[in-house]
């Protein structure tokens, strides 16, 4: 079997100012090309986990390896070339005075020659559908557009992994859709591995695998289908249940025969149709 792209072994972390560890004994593997969603309520430790992966903090215990490189203060810059991160607040990660300057920022930091940079900036902006905004200043962009520029800034560096750290939580529904669609397209076309940290379960339902965090620990891990069978347990964890699951459950209670909880409305409607049409 292929070596995992991200490998965490027994990782713990504690902020100096806090009494409880923010992360406790985390074991985790992420494989190439995978879309992993990490969910949990605010304060469950999911964002801390993201920061550890990028060497913004170092674990108090345990080891982290990215693409086979063990993450230490010596290797951190190599690791950061492998992992791109998109943060929550669209404004506070936009460094450049214009769209193209911002996309170029990461390339400049990595000493990419100017002529290569020019190509990559345009290429990256094309991929997120923002190429016509080259000279636009950030305060003229919507939140969704700013986040797409942030994604372009990340993919211009050709990372193996992109971490979305609640990247859609401050956006309106339209912006959220723009960002998720862009990421799904990229994952598909560029074979980028995505780790999405979120409390939006509709978004998590699109992942290949979900990890539920609670009190700094991995509470449950599984496919979206497996996770959403958890039902009320999710609500107790401060999360929500996706709509199709709620409906399937209620229909079952009201005497409709359904073989399982459905994750998408399409599946559910199709099932209802096949089981109730030929009578």
């Amino acid at each position, binding site marked *: 079997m292929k070596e995992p792209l991200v490998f965490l072994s027994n990782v713990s972390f504690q902020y100096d100012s806090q009494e409880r560890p923010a992360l406790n004994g985390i074991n985790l593997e992420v494989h190439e090309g995978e879309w992993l969603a990490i969910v949990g309520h605010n304060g469950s430790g999911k964002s801390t986990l993201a*920061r550890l992966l*990028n060497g*913004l903090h170092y674990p108090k215990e345990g080891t982290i390896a990215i693409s086979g490189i063990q993450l230490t203060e010596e290797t951190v*810059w190599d690791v*950061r*070339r492998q992992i*791109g*991160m998109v*943060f929550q*607040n669209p*404004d*506070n*990660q*936009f*460094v*450049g*005075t*214009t769209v*193209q*300057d911002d996309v*170029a*920022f*990461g*390339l*400049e*930091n*990595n*000493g*990419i*020659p*100017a002529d290569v*940079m*020019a190509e990559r*900036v345009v290429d990256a902006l094309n991929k997120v559908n923002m190429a016509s905004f080259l000279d636009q*200043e*950030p*305060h003229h962009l919507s939140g969704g557009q700013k986040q797409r520029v942030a994604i372009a*800034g*990340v993919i211009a*560096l050709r990372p193996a992994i992109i971490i979305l750290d609640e990247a859609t939580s401050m956006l309106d529904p339209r912006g959220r859709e723009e960002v998720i669609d862009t990421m799904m397209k990229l994952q598909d076309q560029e074979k980028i591995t995505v780790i999405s940290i979120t409390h939006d379960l509709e978004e998590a339902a699109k992942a290949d695998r979900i990890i539920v965090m609670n009190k700094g620990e991995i509470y449950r891990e599984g496919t979206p289908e497996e996770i959403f069978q958890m039902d009320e347990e999710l609500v107790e964890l401060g999360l929500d249940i996706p709509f199709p699951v709620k409906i399937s459950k209620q229909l079952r209670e009201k005497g409709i025969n359904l073989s399982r909880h459905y994750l998408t409305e399409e599946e559910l409607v199709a099932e209802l149709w096949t089981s109730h049409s030929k009578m």
Partner: protein
Amino acid sequence: MMEKMIIGRYVPAESVLHRMDPRSKLIIVFLFVAVVFLANNLWTYLILLGYTLLMAALSRIPARFLIAGLKPVLFLVLFTFFLHLFLTKEGEVILEIGWLSIYEEGIRQGIFISLRFFLLILITSLLTLTTTPIEITDGLEILLGPLKKVNFPVHELALMMSISLRFIPTLMDETDKIMKAQTARGVEYSSGPIKERMKAIVPLLIPLFISSFKRAEELAVAMEARGYKGGEGRTKYRQLQWKNTDTMMILLLLAVTALLIVFRG
């Protein structure tokens, strides 16, 4: 009110000055500041005036725009004029009004010095009118480059400038939002006694300070995540290009300097 201030605002246009390298423009402005002090008689001032007007024409920025924009600083020029007019006590007395007497030298000095002041303002605003702030930053960073050898933080300074430029509109928005939120909580910003209004500043400044602090922190994390580790080993996306025009424009100013030296009294 701010819309009419022209100093520091970039006006896009197609002109020789717009196309010039920011480095040559900066060099010219610095040189001009020194050269202005060579002028000391009618001829030399006329040469300087001619040169400045030529530059203004080359910028292709509409004259009415230039004039309207310079209005706010005009009073400073006038102030300089009157200051010299009244305080210089040399040469013949031209006019006496009560205790006030105006001397010939006063008029001369008043005109020359306020003209000098006016020309300086015009030339520097031509720089900012035809050069985007980010170009100026880039130009300064390269020109000040040699200072790195004495550990002067040139790169950091340039980065700070460009980030400030980037965040000015964001902070203006933020100020507006917080002002509105506090107004809704009963604070009066636009009316009331001065003392009350001074007090109203606190609920505005503290949130603004805290949010800027948070922004700065988040920005620093984002920059680090994107591989920023200082100026070392960094390449530049924006490449400056020194063209023949740039050399010629500098030669032109040198020629003007030579003329000034010849004609000064």
